[in-house]
């Protein structure tokens, strides 16, 4: 990670510019948009898990919350700029509260997993029971199981009639992802990011150095949630409907699978894992021979058993080995295993 910052940023910009130019020729932009959004969602967990050591079983809660906050405020406001901002802020605020409760309570990893899982379940159950007409926020009916359709979708700021959709939405999402990646890069290079990695490695030591571990984990958790919230808001714009399924455990599971398959402790891994697996799922929908759940499950089991570091680190070390150049840095093996 100690490559010069300028080279890192330049690399990201060139690679993403190329991808944004080339990919629409290979895959429809509509599908690409959701792959980009899932990539962002993967990155949100990759950041807090891979670099902060916080395994959150409920990242979907933040994704769903972002989407719902967007939908609800878009119905009420009728313009998309403020709802986008709200989606990020409310989600981050919610995560900060939840994180503070967990981290100041000094909960262990497994307990953290349980609480995040339970919070996701509560949200899921709650949203599912809001079908009745009494569940209204402003002008927005929560709609229960059926979700909220028909809200104002993304528009040029200040002009509610100028919709951004189709190809334009793809470019907006892609640029948003690039910006998020750059922000994450900056964050990881900053003292804050280096301290976060220190906390992932050894909380006690960092506390004995005088760092307020709980506060820092809370902030990192909230940052991750904010990214998930942004992804949720973009997803709402793409799907034009939000449903409680966004909060489901299945959705949370998928995010974790993306990170494992892509590779933890890298920025690229979770993005690649998310986009790749989501595309795989999309392709699998066009056949009916083998059950798709089965394939996703197998992928996860096989990766945990045989490639626990994930694709990106594995490919990177293969690359280094075959090209035989670059610094001989020991790849950090089995990083997450320590958090057992």
């Amino acid at each position: 990670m100690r490559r010069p910052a300028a080279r890192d940023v330049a690399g990201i910009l060139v690679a993403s510019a190329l991808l944004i130019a080339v990919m629409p020729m290979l895959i429809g932009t509509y599908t690409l948009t959701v792959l980009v959004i899932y990539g962002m969602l993967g990155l949100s967990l990759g950041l807090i898990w891979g670099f902060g050591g916080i395994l959150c079983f409920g990242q979907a809660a933040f994704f769903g919350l972002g989407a719902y906050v967007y939908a609800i405020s878009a119905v009420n406001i009728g313009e998309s700029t403020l709802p986008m901002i709200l989606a990020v802020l409310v989600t981050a605020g919610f995560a900060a509260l939840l994180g503070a409760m967990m981290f100041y309570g000094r909960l262990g990893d497994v307990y953290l997993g349980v609480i995040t899982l339970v919070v996701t379940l509560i949200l899921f159950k709650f949203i599912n029971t809001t079908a009745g007409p009494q569940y209204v926020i402003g002008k927005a009916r929560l709609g229960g199981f059926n979700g909220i359709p028909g809200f104002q979708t993304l528009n040029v700021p200040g002009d509610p009639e100028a919709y951004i959709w189709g190809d334009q939405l793809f470019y907006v999402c892609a640029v948003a992802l690039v910006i998020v990646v750059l922000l994450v890069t900056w964050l990881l290079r900053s003292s804050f990011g280096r301290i976060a990695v220190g906390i992932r490695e050894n909380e006690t030591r960092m506390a004995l150095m005088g760092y307020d571990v709980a506060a820092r984990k809370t902030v990192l958790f909230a940052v991750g949630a904010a990214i998930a919230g942004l992804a949720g808001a973009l997803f709402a714009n793409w799907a034009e409907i939000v449903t409680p399924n966004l909060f489901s455990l299945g959705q949370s599971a998928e995010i974790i699978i993306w990170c494992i398959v892509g590779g933890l402790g890298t920025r690229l891994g979770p993005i690649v894992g998310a986009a790749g697996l989501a595309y795989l799922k999309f392709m699998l929908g066009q056949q009916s021979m083998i059950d798709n759940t089965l394939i996703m499950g197998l992928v996860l089991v096989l990766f945990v058993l045989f490639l626990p570091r994930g694709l990106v680190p594995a490919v990177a070390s293969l690359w280094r080995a075959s090209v035989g150049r670059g610094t001989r840095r020991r790849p950090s093996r089995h990083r997450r295993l320590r958090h057992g």
Partner: protein
Amino acid sequence: MSLNRREFLGATAALTTAGALLPSATLAADSIKLGSILDTSGIFDAYGKPMDQALRLAIGEINAGGGLLGREVDVLSYDTQSDMALYSQYAQKLTRQDQVDVVHGGILSASREAIRQTMRKSKTLYFYNVQYEGGVCDRNIFVTGVTPSQQVEVLVPYAMKKSGPKVHILAADYNYGQITARWIQKFVEENGGEVVATDFFPLDVSDFGSTITKIQQTAPDLVVAPLVGGAHLSFFRQWAAAGMKDKIALASTTMGVGNEHKVLTPEEGNGIMVAYNYSQELDTPENRAFKEKWEAAYGDTSAIHELAVSTYQGIMLWAEGVKKAGTVDRMPVIEALETGISIVGPAGNIAIDPQTHHATLDVHVMEVENQGMTVMETFNQVAPVDTQQVCNLQENPDDNTQYEIQI
């Protein structure tokens, strides 16, 4: 209980057909393209699979008869895996990339709402062939399933006559259940009865022990239970297990839509009162012919259910509209359908209501008997009065709302 060989072959065949159809370049240039978008895997596939089979049966029949307007009809189908996000994705693919002439599909109301606007924006005619809560008002969509008023209007008086005036409602806690519960309340009161309590259950509730105790506290004469899905099926089982079945009468507007009555044993299911457009036990020449065709294609008719028949009838109505319009272009077909086109399907005569784009159809009040549904009373040509209250596409052709019907 293993993978049935025929199903397996069927699946393989479906796969190869779909595979052959996928690259749009290989499609015959002059074929008509029908898009299908259904959950044929995942938790809703009990609904989706027979619908998919019915759709292929209908298209096979049309093509065997020389196609439509002398052109072959090709099916482009996508499995949405019970995932709402995939609905949006495949809808985009069908309308933009495949540029189909019509789309049939969607199961849950949420899935319909996820794709309805895409269909409207891309000017692709859309058929939703499912029993649902009613109220959709959009000139681009045709709905061939029954709506709550159509069922409740005939079911409630029948059930109350058989039991008594005190009714306890147990409804699935989502849009459909909420609206249906209100219709039940209205018809109970109109028939001189009283709703003593209404409880709503999210779709994942499967333990009804406390509910059954509560029902005994309110001591109704009749329980009406529009409960939905696998978890809710537990209610009917626990109800029987508690020995309640012979004490309080039970009616439902949903039990049996996915052939749930075939899962319950006769002891658990017998006597439950329902009202639908279709029953496998309907004794009409059309239904017998339909079941024979189904058996020839898939070997076993046990999978046929209400939604499958709605799908079949939906395709046939569309085909009728195309024939009448002489083209597959959207507006002429819509206008043709708005003339009140009707067909006689396996469930009887079904006509498009021009005002709402919903269906006027026969509703049968039935009782579950030995895992079948025995018709007790038939009401011919029941109109979708609920949607008619709020929707008039002839006066407001640009309407694009799902109304919540106030009662």
